[in-house]
């Protein structure tokens, strides 16, 4: 069975979803979903170790070898991202039951788990597959599940947010499909590795450029890269809290993964930049995203929205790392991908805990929670520090690499920008901390969040600390991935 881990990684949650639907009873569905997520987490750890020990794994689905059948490829990059998604998913699903009890009527629980598992499976499928079209299918699975998850939100605005997300997401996916169509008509293959080999040396450069543009714009919509980020704050702030926690920590990360895969492996960074200075464009967009989104976050009154906008800004960092184009920059992007996933998971689970007890996530709902919910707010503060990039937290490590990478490219303004971004982050985060710790709570007493929420929250918070101190896993994993990507197309 060990040789089938690559496919089981995706199939386990994929098949757990319909089983959950059959189970019907919310609690049973939850337990089953937990089981599936933990199993999947185990698989991802095993895969990570396997890849680290013996290099990329290729799995031919249906027994049809690579370009003819669909291939699953787990290499350093994908195993790294898989590990992140699985960590987050496990944390979120464990806390989901408590959070949902407070947020949704009971009959909607089991569909939530079904959709959650589908989204989870879809994201993993995108990461695991080596086939460009298979990506599209799994992209749509995860997207459809996400739209439905967002629409589950309590407010009617959730509906409209879901609708807008659906429109943008569908256009994005269709753009991606068009790009893949161009690439297919040029190469006659859908396998990414195969494409990467066939693409250089083609004469139809305009078409390659168009293909790249479509693929990138399509992914950028999913990634919520400025200026295509409009859907994200609405969707994230309206979705049920735990759904947000999962999406914020994984969905955009997977989009970035896909982007890196396409940009560095399939099309080749140098080839693309010879057509058009894309790298510089990314730097510019990333920079604008960092500044604008962070500034917008300061003015928000809803904590979920603050963090959602902060996500847009953080995506800016990720894109800057990619745009720098050197090994350090890519490593910074990958590190931040991982670390930011942990950060946002911690923060949104904390928000979920607050919503669970207080019933809202407006800033004034946080009054005095430092005393009323010390554990929740403690976890949140750790996440917040990590978001700012304080040393000994995971956020610091990725910022460190990003700044180093910018220095290596000699882009000093960018160094300044990254740091100013962190500085602004300090402001919007600290507003929340201040309200929580230094403003008295009026109204009914609030008790500490349930244990099942604190558990994942602190798991994520401690992960933030752990990966800020022992970086061998993250730095090592990302380094392997970078070597793999940069080595495949020097």
């Amino acid at each position: 069975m060990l040789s089938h881990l690559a496919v089981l990684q995706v199939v386990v949650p994929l098949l757990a979803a319909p089983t959950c639907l059959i189970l019907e009873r919310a609690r049973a569905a939850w337990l089953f979903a937990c089981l599936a997520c933990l199993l999947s987490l185990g698989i991802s750890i095993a895969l990570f170790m396997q890849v680290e020990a013996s290099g990329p794994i290729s799995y031919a689905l249906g027994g049809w070898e690579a370009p003819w059948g669909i291939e699953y490829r787990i290499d350093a990059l994908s195993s790294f991202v898989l590990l992140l998604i699985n960590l987050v998913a496990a944390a979120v699903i464990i806390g989901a039951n408590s959070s949902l009890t407070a947020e949704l009527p009971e009959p909607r629980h089991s569909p939530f788990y079904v959709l959650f598992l589908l989204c989870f499976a879809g994201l993993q499928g995108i990461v695991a597959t080596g086939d460009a079209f298979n990506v599209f299918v799994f992209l749509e699975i995860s997207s459809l599940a996400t739209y439905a998850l967002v629409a589950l939100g309590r407010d009617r605005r959730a509906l409209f947010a879901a609708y807008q997300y659906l429109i943008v997401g569908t256009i994005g996916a269709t753009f991606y499909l068009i790009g893949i169509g161009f690439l297919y008509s040029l190469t006659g293959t859908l396998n990414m590795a195969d494409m990467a080999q066939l693409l250089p040396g083609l004469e139809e450069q305009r078409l390659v450029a168009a293909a790249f543009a479509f693929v990138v714009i399509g992914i950028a919509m999913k990634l919520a890269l400025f200026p295509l980020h409009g859907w994200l704050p609405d969707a994230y702030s309206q979705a049920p809290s735990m759904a947000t926690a999962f999406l914020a920590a994984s969905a955009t990360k997977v989009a970035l993964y896909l982007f890196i895969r396409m940009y560095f492996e399939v099309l080749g960074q140098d080839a693309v930049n010879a057509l058009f200075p894309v790298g510089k464009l990314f730097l510019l967009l990333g920079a604008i995203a960092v500044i604008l989104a962070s500034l917008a976050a300061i003015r928000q009154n809803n904590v979920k929205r603050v963090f959602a906008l902060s996500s847009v800004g953080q995506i800016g960092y990720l894109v800057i790392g990619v745009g720098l184009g050197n090994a350090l920059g890519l490593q910074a992007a990958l590190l931040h991908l991982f670390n930011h996933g942990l950060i946002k998971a911690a923060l949104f689970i904390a928000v979920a805990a607050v919503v669970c007890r207080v019933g809202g996530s407006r800033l004034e709902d946080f009054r005095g929670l430092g005393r009323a919910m010390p554990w929740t707010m403690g976890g949140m503060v750790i996440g917040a520090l990590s978001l700012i990039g304080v040393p000994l937290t995971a956020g610091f490590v990725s910022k460190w690499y990003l700044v180093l990478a910018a220095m290596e490219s000699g882009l000093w303004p960018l160094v300044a920008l990254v740091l100013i971004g962190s500085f602004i982050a300090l402001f919007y985060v600290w507003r929340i901390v201040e309200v929580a710790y230094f403003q008295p709570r009026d109204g009914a007493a609030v008790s500490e969040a349930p244990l099942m929420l604190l558990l994942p929250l602190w798991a994520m918070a401690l992960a933030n600390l752990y990966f800020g101190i022992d970086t061998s896993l993250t730095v090592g994993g990302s380094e392997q991935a970078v070597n793999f990507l940069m080595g495949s197309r020097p």
Partner: protein
Amino acid sequence: MVRARDLFATVMLSGIYGLLSASFFILMDAADVAFTEAAVGAGIFPLLMLTVLTSVGRYEAERRRVRYLPLFVMVVLAGALFAAVLQMPPFGAVDAPSHGHVAQRYIQDSPAEIGIPNMVTSVLASYRGFDTLGEVVVIFTAAVGVVVILLGGRPKTPQQSTQALMAEHKVLRVVGKMLIPLILLFGLYVQFHGEYGPGGGFQAGVIFAVGIILYAMLFGLSNAQRVVPLGVLRWLVALGVLIYGSVGLANLVVGGEYLNYSMLASDPVTGQHIGIILIELGVGITVASAMVLIFFAFTRATRSRDELEE
């Protein structure tokens, strides 16, 4: 279509558009796709649209202005695309790279490797069987999503009988009674004929669903739900996916890769055959029940609104 304010007309036009593209697909030698597009673009999509229109109203608000920014973006996009597609291999070229590399094997070897004449089905169900599993899951996701969005988690079949949509149409009812068994039969035919001609699980599922939907339209939603209760549908939607997925798992058990049907029998070709029949069954079940479920959810949602208003 852009300018018409009457949404009903727009929907009808888009139905015709679907039918036209289906005919176009036939011309392009894509029989399976045409079949599907006809069922979806000219069938399910307008049907759902119309159901929605009964609730949201037939006319849109008066608005007559051109948005210049989108227009500009579109013109630029069109220009860029024109420039790009001119580098495509010429339409119909025999030596286009896309026909050479991977496709060649499907055309040359699939009859021998899979043992069925319809290459589209071979590729769909075996070479790229995992895509199709994904496709089924997409339908499953949509069904779960629609139900939870419109009806809330766990809808119960209503007890009291609501008035049928077309109770006063005697002729329709009689003709419908005649047709429905035929439609279901045809569905079964498409289901199991997919290996030889155009057709397969998806198309069959849709046709099957149409039969039940027709029943619901003629004899009332509650009667239809008594025939196929929502609970059963939920169960069936999941069952289809599980059948498909378990075939894959069964392959693992007998020692092949996921979805490698060759191991299912002593002879690889027979194995493929068995596998494809099983997974097409899964597809058919999920698609049919998902479509019915979605339709039920839509009509229930529009109906409950009417009841609220009264």
